C-alpha cells in the first residue's frame, strides 16, 4: 500500500526534514508514526498525500510513484486517500453535513448518493444527529470526528491522520483512536502520526518512529524513549 524508498526531504533553505526513510505498509495494516515535535512526522504524511514531493528517493502509493504523478492527476490521487488533520480543517461557514459532503461534491457525485454516504460516514463516527449543526457549535472532539467522517466518506483504502488527538484530553483521544482502529478492522490501511506515547503504547500496534528525520529501529523505539517524550510533552 505504502512504500518509501530512500526518501529524503529537504525544504527550500532548511535542513533535511527526512533522511533515508525506508519502510513499507501492507494493505489493511495499522501503524503509528511517532517522534518528537519536529521529527518529520507531518512531512512524511505530506509526502504520502502528495502535498510535498520527496527531494530524492521514491514514495509509492498502491505501486505508483508520487514523483511521476502529473499535476492534473493529483486531485484524483487525493480522492483515494482519507486525511485527518490536527486542526480539523473544517469549513466553519457550512453545516456538518456539507463539510462531510465536500469530498463527494468535488468528485461530482450524484446528489442522492451524497446524502446516503454522508449519513453513513456520520453514523460511523456517532454524529448522525448533528448533521445540521454548524462546526462551531460542536466540541473539539466532535469537530475531529467530523474531520474523520469527511476523510472516510469516500471509503478510501488509505487513511492518514496527523496528530488527530493533539488537542484532546486522554478520554476523547481514546475515543478517536478507537474509531481509527475500527476502520483498520474493516480493511482500511491506517497511518496515524502522534507524539502521545502513553496513548499509542496502550493500543499495541506497529510503530514507525522518527528522530530528527531518521527512522529509529522500531523494536527499541517504543519504550526506550518514553522518558524523552514525556519531557517533550511538558514544554510543547
Amino acid at each position: 500500500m505504502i512504500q518509501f524508498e530512500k526518501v529524503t526531504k529537504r525544504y527550500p533553505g532548511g535542513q533535511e526534514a527526512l533522511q533515508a526513510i525506508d519502510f513499507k505498509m501492507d494493505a489493511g495494516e495499522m501503524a503509528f508514526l511517532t517522534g518528537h515535535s519536529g521529527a518529520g512526522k507531518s512531512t512524511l504524511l505530506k509526502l504520502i498525500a502528495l502535498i510535498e514531493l520527496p527531494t530524492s528517493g521514491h514514495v509509492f502509493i498502491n505501486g505508483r510513484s508520487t514523483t511521476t504523478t502529473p499535476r492534473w492527476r493529483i486531485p484524483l490521487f487525493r480522492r483515494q486517500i482519507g486525511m485527518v488533520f490536527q486542526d480539523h480543517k473544517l469549513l466553519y461557514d457550512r453545516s456538518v453535513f456539507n463539510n462531510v459532503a465536500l469530498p463527494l461534491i468535488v468528485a461530482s457525485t450524484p446528489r442522492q448518493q451524497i446524502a446516503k454516504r454522508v449519513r453513513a460516514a456520520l453514523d460511523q463516527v456517532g454524529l448522525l444527529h448533528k448533521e445540521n449543526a454548524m462546526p462551531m457549535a460542536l466540541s473539539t472532539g466532535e469537530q475531529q470526528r467530523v474531520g474523520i467522517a469527511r476523510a472516510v466518506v469516500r471509503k478510501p483504502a488509505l487513511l492518514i491522520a496527523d496528530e488527530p488527538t493533539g488537542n484532546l484530553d486522554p478520554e476523547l483521544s481514546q475515543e478517536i483512536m478507537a474509531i481509527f482502529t475500527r476502520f483498520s478492522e474493516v480493511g482500511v490501511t491506517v497511518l496515524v502520526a502522534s507524539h502521545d506515547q502513553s496513548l499509542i503504547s496502550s493500543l499495541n500496534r506497529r510503530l514507525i518512529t522518527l528522530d530528527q528525520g531518521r527512522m529509529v529501529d522500531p523494536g527499541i523505539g517504543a519504550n526506550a524513549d518514553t522518558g524523552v517524550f514525556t519531557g517533550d510533552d511538558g514544554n510543547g
Partner: protein
Amino acid sequence: MARTSKHGASLKPHARNPIRKGVGRGASVRKKAASLNLSVGGLLGHHMDAAGNSLSRLTTQPFAALMTLLVIGIALALPTGLHLLVQNARLISGEWANAVDLSVYVTPGTSEEALADLSAQIESHPLVDGLIVLTAAEALEDFKALSGFGAALDTLEENPLPATMIVRPNALDENPEKVMELAAELQALPRVDLVQLDTEWVERFHAMLDVVRRVVMVAGILLALAVLVIVGNTIRMEIQQRRDEIEITRLVGGSDAFIRRPFLYTGIWYGALGGLISVVLVTVAVHLVGGPVSRVAGLYGSDFSLRGLADLQWLWLVLGAVVLGAVGSWVAASRHLRHLETG
C-alpha cells in the same frame, strides 16, 4: 496549549447562536433545491449549485458588491452613451444635409424659353424634389427688398443679377454624398453658371464625427479593460478571503476546475448585473436628455427625437459584459489560485 483551546471552542457556540439561526434557514433552502434537482446529473447540478452559491455570496457583502457593480455599470455606460451620442449626431446631420437647398445661377442673358427648358430638365431629375425659379428681374426685386439699397440699385442701367433656381433635393437619408453628385451634375448642364451648395460644413461635421467615433471606440476598449481589471481585482480579493476553503478543497481532491468554478460564476454575475446596471443608466440618461432635445428640435421645426438603445442592443451590451466578467475572473482565478498553491 492543548487544553485551553478546548475550552475556547466550547465557549463559542453561545456567541455564535444568532449566526447559526441565519445559516439554518439557508440550509433548508438548499435542501429544497436539492429535492428539485434530483433528476439532474451530478456535474450539471454542481454547476447550478456553484452559480447559485456565487450569487448568494454577492449578497453577503451587499455594499461592496453594489459598489463594484456600479463601477462596472458606469464603466460600460460611458462608452455606450458616447456611442449613442455619435449615432444621434449622425442622424441630425443627415437631416441637415437633406435640408440644404442648391442655388443654381443661370448664365446671364439666357432667354425666358431656355430658362423654362432648363427648369423642366432639372425638375425631372430623380434626385430633385422641386425647385423655385427666380428670373433676373425677380431676383433683383428680392435683393432690393432685402438689402435696403433699393434707391441706389434703381440707378443701375442693367440688371447685374442672373436668373436663379433654388433646387430642393430629395430626402437623401444620411447621404450627403448624393447631394454632391447632384450638384456636380447640375453644374455640368449648359447655361448653368454656378451651383452653390452649403454642405461643406456638413462634410466637415461628418469627418469630425468619424474622429469622435474613433475616440469613443478607443475609450470603449480602455473601459472594457478597466472592467476586466475591476472584476479581476474583486476575484483576487475573494480568493484571499477564501484561502482556507480553497486549501481544504484541494486537500480533499478538488480539481483546479472545481476550485475555479465559483470564482468564474462570480465574475459572470458581476458582468451580467453590471451590464444590466449600465443598460439602466443609459436608458435613464437618454430619457433625461431626450425631453429637452426634442423641445430644441421643435423650436427649429424638426421632429427629431433622441434615440436610445435599439431593439436588442441592450442584450448585446449585457452579453458583452458577461464575457468581460468571465474572462476577467478566469484570468484572475487561474493566476491567483496557482500563486496560492506555490506560495
